[in-house]
């Protein structure tokens, strides 16, 4: 998540409550934990739909390569 771009719409928390919480002012809190495979589709959607394009998915381990985000546990929603 790019904290400067984020304006606290909260869409990501609606789509992905398993991974994204909101603080009392409505800004997303992410713990940087790897995205479980079954949530990858939703995570991609959250990234695509963020109104300020403040989210992106990154490989969790350095050197995980430039593969497309595939189902699996080596990708995470990044702050």
């Amino acid at each position, binding site marked *: 998540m790019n904290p400067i771009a984020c304006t606290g719409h909260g869409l990501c928390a609606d789509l992905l409550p398993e991974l994204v919480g909101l*603080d*009392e002012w409505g*800004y997303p809190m992410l713990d940087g934990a790897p995205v479980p495979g079954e949530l990858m589709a939703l995570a991609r959607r959250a990234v695509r739909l963020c109104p300020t394009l403040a989210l992106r998915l990154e490989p969790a381990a350095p050197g995980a390569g430039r593969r497309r985000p595939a189902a699996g546990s080596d990708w995470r929603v990044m*702050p």
Partner: protein
Amino acid sequence: MASHAGRAVATEAALAAGAAARRAARAGITSRLTAGWHEAGGPATLREHLQRYGPLPQPGRNRALIDAVTAAGLTGRGGAGFPTGIKMRAVASRRGPAVVVANGMESEPASEKDKALLARAPHLVLDGAVLAASAVGADSVHVCLPRGRRRLAEAVEDAVAERERAGLDPVAIAVRALPHWYVSSEESALVHWLNGGEAKPTAVPPRPYEKGVGQRPTLVDNVETLAHVALIGRYGPAWFRRAGLPDAPGTMLVTVAGAVRAPGVYEIEAGTRVGDILAMSGMAVDAGPVLVGGYFGTWHHAEEVAGVPMAPGPLRAIGASPGTGALFPLPADCCGLAETARVLAWLAGQGAGQCGPCVFGLPAIADDFAQLAAGRPKGPVLDRLDRRLGQVGGRGACRHPDGAVRLARSALSAFAADVRSHLSRRACLAAWRGQPRQGVLPVPRPAGDGEWL
């Protein structure tokens, strides 16, 4: 008779000087950067400077300097303490001409050391910037200073002009005057401003060493760090390591203020015990807890911190950091909660206004603290503070919210007894000694547009 008396006086003076020197040595006070500060009323001229330190080593095949700085173990003196050699190597390894930025913004209100260094030894800083520039392949140096400190900028400009007349430097040096607020000294904020933007931090990456001023690889170093580079370039890493600890070598500038008889900027060996520094500056016996590391630092009881060496490793063990090297024992007639509340309110207004957790979180935390300081809590203030302090750290583009959170947490722990008495609506310790004095920790006056005077 007269001559006898004269001799006695001279002997006494010599004894006093000897005792002061021994006391200074015991306290780890040295004079590498500060040599000659006390004789000179103003900045050292180029002539005085070269007489004092010797000629500038030949720039040119200066990749050797990066090895020397790495071997010396120099770390950044601007607060973060990053290894300078690694930073220089990272910039040098990028393609194309680089840029050097000397950071003299010193936004930390509890710190005076960069101002003092630039005002007394501008050529030492400029030497370091020029040597670093040739080492990393830079053809230009920007010296960034706050535009409110006009006389300081003039002194540095005079020094640059003196060097130009002497034809000393192979690189161009420009003195730049930036708007001054707390986060404008952050390295990405400097780069952003030098590129024509606002002096506000940007979301990183790319980091300045990758893409900085004019999209070029950029080395941003604190002015004190560069002054050490100037000395390592002259005398080598083994000399540098003669002072300090093996894992925290060299000397460092510290600013001591608060409940001390002789506040000011001192140069100490890194690793000098905090208690010795405070004793040297004449700390009052009844002083309260000590703020270590400035406004992003932490409060500690004197007995907890006195025996700890002023160096990153040992301080980390008690949850502290040297930060900008500021030490501030709280005077006994001040309330630590009220002082911290004032600083937090000020820090809350000093953000760049860019990231939600900082924009909303810091004022909320400052307000909770104000309630605590006033002894008028609205609801369960401690629970609320605990939750908010846990939510705000690590969520900004820069470290501004993290620093404020650290300060607030440490105040709750160092002033725990005061917290209890404030919440039970009894007077705190400072009030028992009389009306608490207010506003002891310095907070800059705003000068319109959020800038400082």
